[in-house]
């Protein structure tokens, strides 16, 4: 009769063990994003840090995401109080410098921070190749389902979110994602970008950055 009891016990125990085993393989802090595959939420945000040539933007200009359609866009949400943002900054900025002539635009989005300490942080870190905009209301961050910084979104030429990186982004991730998205662009977009490396077709209106000191 003992074998019967063993089978009954196993019937209860095995599913429970499998359930726990499945649960322990999941990182509870990693929230799966529903955004990849969908259109990237559009935004208009003011520039507070201009970046470095040849990808500079005047402080006070408004960046309209939809105007960057046709190129790959790498959106990096960051803050000056974020320690992990320090880890990725040098690699991200160096990568943006290396890809300046390619059809990819890098944009920093300041989350839950003020432009003044963020500008000090950029200087302290030795500069930032790409411009940064200020999400003073955090509505854009919420639109992207942000739950911490740094987070990086890779947007393809059609304006769809292709991939989301939670936590610091590395050179190898950037190379793999950006190269594959550039390869998927139409030939005209690839050749056109090499000739014009400045950010094109930004919203002309100048606005005072919300939350600027």
């Amino acid at each position, binding site marked *: 009769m003992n074998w019967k009891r063993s089978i009954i016990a196993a019937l209860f125990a095995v599913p429970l063990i499998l359930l726990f085993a499945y649960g322990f393989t999941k990182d509870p802090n990693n929230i799966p994003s529903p955004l990849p595959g969908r259109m990237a939420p559009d935004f208009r945000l003011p520039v507070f840090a201009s970046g470095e040539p040849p990808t500079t933007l005047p402080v006070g200009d408004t960046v309209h995401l939809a105007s960057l359609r046709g190129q790959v866009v790498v959106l990096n949400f960051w803050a000056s109080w974020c320690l992990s943002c320090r880890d990725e900054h040098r690699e991200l900025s160096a990568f943006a410098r290396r890809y300046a002539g390619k059809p990819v635009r890098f944009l920093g989005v300041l989350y839950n921070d003020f432009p003044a300490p963020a500008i000090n942080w950029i200087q302290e870190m030795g500069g930032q190749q790409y411009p940064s905009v200020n999400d003073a*209301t955090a509505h854009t961050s*919420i639109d992207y389902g942000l739950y*911490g910084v740094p987070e990086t979104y890779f947007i393809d030429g059609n304006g769809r979110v292709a991939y989301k990186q939670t936590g610091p982004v590395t050179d190898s991730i950037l190379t793999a994602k950006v190269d594959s998205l550039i390869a998927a662009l139409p030939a005209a977009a690839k050749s056109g970008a090499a000739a014009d490396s400045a950010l094109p077709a930004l919203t002309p209106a100048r606005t005072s950055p919300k939350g600027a000191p």
Partner: protein
Amino acid sequence: MRRRSRWAIAAPLVLLSLAAMPLRAQGSPPQTADTAGMSIHSATLSDSALDAETRGVASQLRCPICQGESLQDSPSELAGEMRNLVKTQLAQGKTPAEVKAYFVSKYGEWILLDPRAHGFNLVLYAAPYVLLVIGLGVIYVAVKRWSANGPAPEESQQEQH
């Protein structure tokens, strides 16, 4: 004595089975008007009604940077901004269901403190009841066997003396 000791074993089993009953979303308020559907929603809520409805919706949404806290309970700045967004959308005439659908579209169903009762989530809702039924069944069978076996030999001897 033996029979009493058997019930002493059975009683905690019953209590354990009852403890497995779902205590869904402890601290979450009763469902608000979203159950009424998305069709009609007053676009001109009074301030107090808007605040109450904002609290209701914010209590059903999870704070993304906290551990098991609702937007309503969290003191974090992101939760504050999300509460503001909830209020703004309600003030614009969106129903609580539409506001929650917006947050689900951004964060996935994870953002809901009460998971929707469909698909794999049904396991969460059904499991406690299934376990309760199984537990009661086990207790019933065990007690029936004990009763059928009659009193233990030691007890019988003691009763004879």
